[in-house]
């Protein structure tokens, strides 16, 4: 039966997006499936999964949010204060460590880091004071370090993992809640020299500039605070662009506000824009479209299409043709939404419910998102995507705010509220990625803020804030295994193999901006534990 599925899968999908022994890139591969072809650990034996080793970093500020990278039996992982560790992936033994010097003074958005990229003999990382560093992959010695912009001036820094395409390392930045103009910056992997910068808000004379009123483009947001994807066949880089600023008050930026809340496709060598698709024109809800783009090939209405599946903070999945940005469809991955009533067949938002100045408007989902940045997964075996959803609303108050470069620029405030019927909660779901048909749903009483990991063992792994790391049956959503790791989950688990033994590794340690702001809807959030331990699991070795 499993063999038959595998054959069918190969027919339907190229397996390009699957990882094998390594977990070489942030999203698994550059197609960002967060899916491994390994199946030693599977639905029939996962209940025997047991800890293999653990590594404590000691750096628990803002939680442990990283995605480890594994190459050739070595695991590379970064902490919130940008310390990097190279570990023997089979034993957890330390190979080298890189300790990042603490910046002077405060850092905007606080210390947070979501991972490194490994390529061309180097480990690349963006830092919380807005540098990009390249570390020698063998020794841990710093090879180069370059500042992207004065963090205090731009109100921005780097939390996302970089994306390496050939000899170019591309980094995005935070700043969407600051008076900031977003951009992507690309450097030469060899020596850190600037290759290009792409501003997500067009300047005077550029196409799209007319979608901004007056000077609003100068500090209009459009942060690129998560990691992009890359299609080697089309040679296109895809990146999600965040909310427009000020977040909730838009009278001063009347217009569509390109390219905020868009997916952009760039040429990796030149940084030139090839196409864009704006999911939310004139965002007034802080509904970043900065999340991951999952690149899959699927038949749509009888024709094989190269697709891009992208969930935004508004809780909608958008399906685009990734060759040209054509809208294919959109569907909600949450039950509670009232910011729009829906999306038309040609991608227009219907029934916008906008916050007003000076008095609260009850909006679902909340500004923390119908999905936070924790990432979805796609399994070519089931053909489903696996999504983490938050059913949390908020009272939004908009207000005009004076602009000062780099300063906080929300243009209002939000207070989290439960949805109209019943308490705040979250769920993991399996969807057909094109039609949005829900296949199963796994409910959970608090916020699920860790990424999904899918495997050829037909398992979906993730963790919860109470400390449980668990496996669901990818076909039914049944919980098959769970382990109490001692601290909440806000990172991205990965799987890999060394010498024929499959491992599943997950960062543990609760934290992050959203995690720390949940008490209005979940007083129990006070009990979710921070920490910074990488927990690694495997099946018992034979004979045990």
């Amino acid at each position, binding site marked *: 039966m499993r063999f038959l599925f595998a054959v069918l899968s190969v027919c339907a999908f190229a397996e390009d997006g699957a990882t094998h022994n390594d977990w070489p890139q942030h999203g698994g591969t550059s197609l960002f499936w967060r899916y491994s072809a390994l199946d030693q650990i599977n639905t029939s034996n996962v209940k025997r999964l047991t800890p293999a080793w653990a590594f404590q970093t000691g750096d628990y500020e803002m939680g442990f949010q990283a995605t480890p990278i594994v190459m050739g039996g070595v695991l590379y992982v970064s902490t919130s204060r940008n310390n990097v560790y190279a570990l023997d992936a089979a034993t957890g033994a330390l190979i080298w460590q890189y300790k990042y010097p603490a910046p002077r003074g405060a850092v905007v958005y606080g210390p947070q880091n979501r991972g490194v990229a490994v390529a061309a003999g180097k480990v690349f990382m963006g830092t919380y004071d807005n540098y990009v560093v390249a570390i020698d992959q063998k020794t841990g010695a710093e090879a*180069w370090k370059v500042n992207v912009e004065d963090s205090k*001036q731009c109100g921005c820094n780097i939390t996302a993992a970089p994306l390496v395409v050939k000899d170019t390392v591309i980094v995005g930045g935070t700043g969407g809640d600051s008076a900031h103009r977003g951009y992507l910056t690309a450097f030469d992997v060899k020596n850190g020299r600037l290759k290009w910068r792409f501003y997500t808000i067009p300047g005077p004379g550029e196409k799209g500039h007319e979608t901004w009123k007056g000077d609003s483009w*100068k500090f209009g947001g459009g942060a690129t605070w998560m990691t992009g994807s890359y299609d080697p066949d089309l040679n296109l880089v895809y990146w999600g662009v965040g909310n427009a600023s000020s977040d909730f008050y838009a009278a001063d930026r009347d217009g569509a506000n390109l390219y905020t809340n868009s997916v952009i496709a760039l040429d990796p060598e030149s940084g030139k824009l090839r196409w864009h698709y704006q999911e939310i024109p004139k965002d007034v809800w802080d509904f970043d479209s900065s999340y991951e783009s999952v690149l899959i090939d699927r038949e749509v209405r009888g024709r094989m299409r190269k697709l891009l599946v992208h969930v935004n903070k508004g809780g909608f999945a958008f399906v685009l043709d990734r060759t040209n940005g054509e809208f294919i469809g959109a569907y909600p991955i949450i039950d509670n939404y009232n910011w729009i009533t829906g999306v038309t067949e040609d991608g227009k938002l219907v029934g916008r419910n906008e916050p007003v100045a000076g008095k609260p408007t009850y909006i679902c989902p909340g500004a923390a998102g119908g999905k936070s940045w924790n990432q979805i997964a796609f399994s070519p075996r089931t053909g489903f995507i696996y999504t983490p959803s938050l059913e949390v609303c908020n009272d939004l108050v908009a207000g005009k705010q004076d602009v000062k470069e780099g300063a906080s620029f929300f243009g209002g405030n939000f207070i989290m509220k439960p949805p109209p019927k019943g308490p705040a909660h979250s769920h993991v779901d399996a969807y057909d990625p094109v039609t949005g048909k829900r296949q199963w749903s796994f409910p959970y009483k608090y916020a699920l803020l860790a990424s999904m990991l899918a495997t050829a063992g037909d398992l979906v792994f993730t963790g919860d804030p109470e400390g449980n790391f668990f496996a669901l049956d990818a076909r039914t959503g049944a919980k098959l295994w769970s382990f109490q790791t001692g601290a909440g989950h806000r990172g991205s688990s990965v799987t890999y193999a060394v010498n024929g033994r499959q491992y599943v590794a997950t960062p543990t340690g609760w934290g992050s901006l959203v995690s720390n702001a949940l008490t209005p809807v979940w007083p129990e959030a006070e009990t979710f534990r921070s920490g910074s331990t990488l927990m690694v699991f495997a099946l018992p070795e034979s004979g045990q």
Partner: protein
Amino acid sequence: MKSVLNRSLWSRLSVDPVHSGRPPSRDHRERSNSRVFTHARNLAALLFVPLMYSQTMVEHGADVFAKTCATGYCHGTKGAGGGAPKLAGRGFDEALIVSVTRAGVPGTAMQGYGTILARPDFNAVVAYVASLNGIEARSTETAVRPLSGEAARGRDLFSDPLRGFARCSTCHQVDGTGIAVAPIVNAPASLRDISTSHVRIVIEGGDRFPALVVSQGGRRTSLYDLSVLPPVMRTVESSALKVDGAASWRHVLGSYSDGELRAIGAFLRSVK
């Protein structure tokens, strides 16, 4: 709300007597406080004596707080706490509130607002946070060094965001703004005449590039590669490098006009 006036200071200033004994009507109190405050503030600014918090100042501070500090993932409505710590009823003293508000908390998201907020906003928000901690009067005023109009324009040009990397602050830090790649030493009257003789030519394989050598010794050499902006701090095996003579490298001043450079010069001299 009790009177927020510091009576001893009030009496020292010897202006009209305020209410004593029986509390005045609310309307009278607010009018009186506001008027008295303005007067006292002027005197205080002149004499550098401690200021008092007025009701209007606290109210203004509440507004600044709501827009700046309570937002999003931070201190919550009325300082009740959210993603960032609770600020109300913590028993904070004024010195702590002033210093943290001004300088931030190293290593956290709490940045210093001393240069972000305009001075009246800064003082007001301190007054408000103080009021959340039961403190009703005291000083926040410090002498502010005023910049001339030209120097203020120079400060803005120094770190002008619309110039991308082609601005002074890409390599120089003044008054806490910018990246401290190289210190500014003895800026000449005309910035176009800045000497850059310490920039060297470095040869690495087939690559020749201008560089600022930071440390050269033993196995590794650290340098700023100035091939393109922004400068890249690189650490290279010394054996793979040859440091040659002075480079003909010049400052990247092309994005500034002569008039703009004069303004930047005025700024640099004023912060010396």
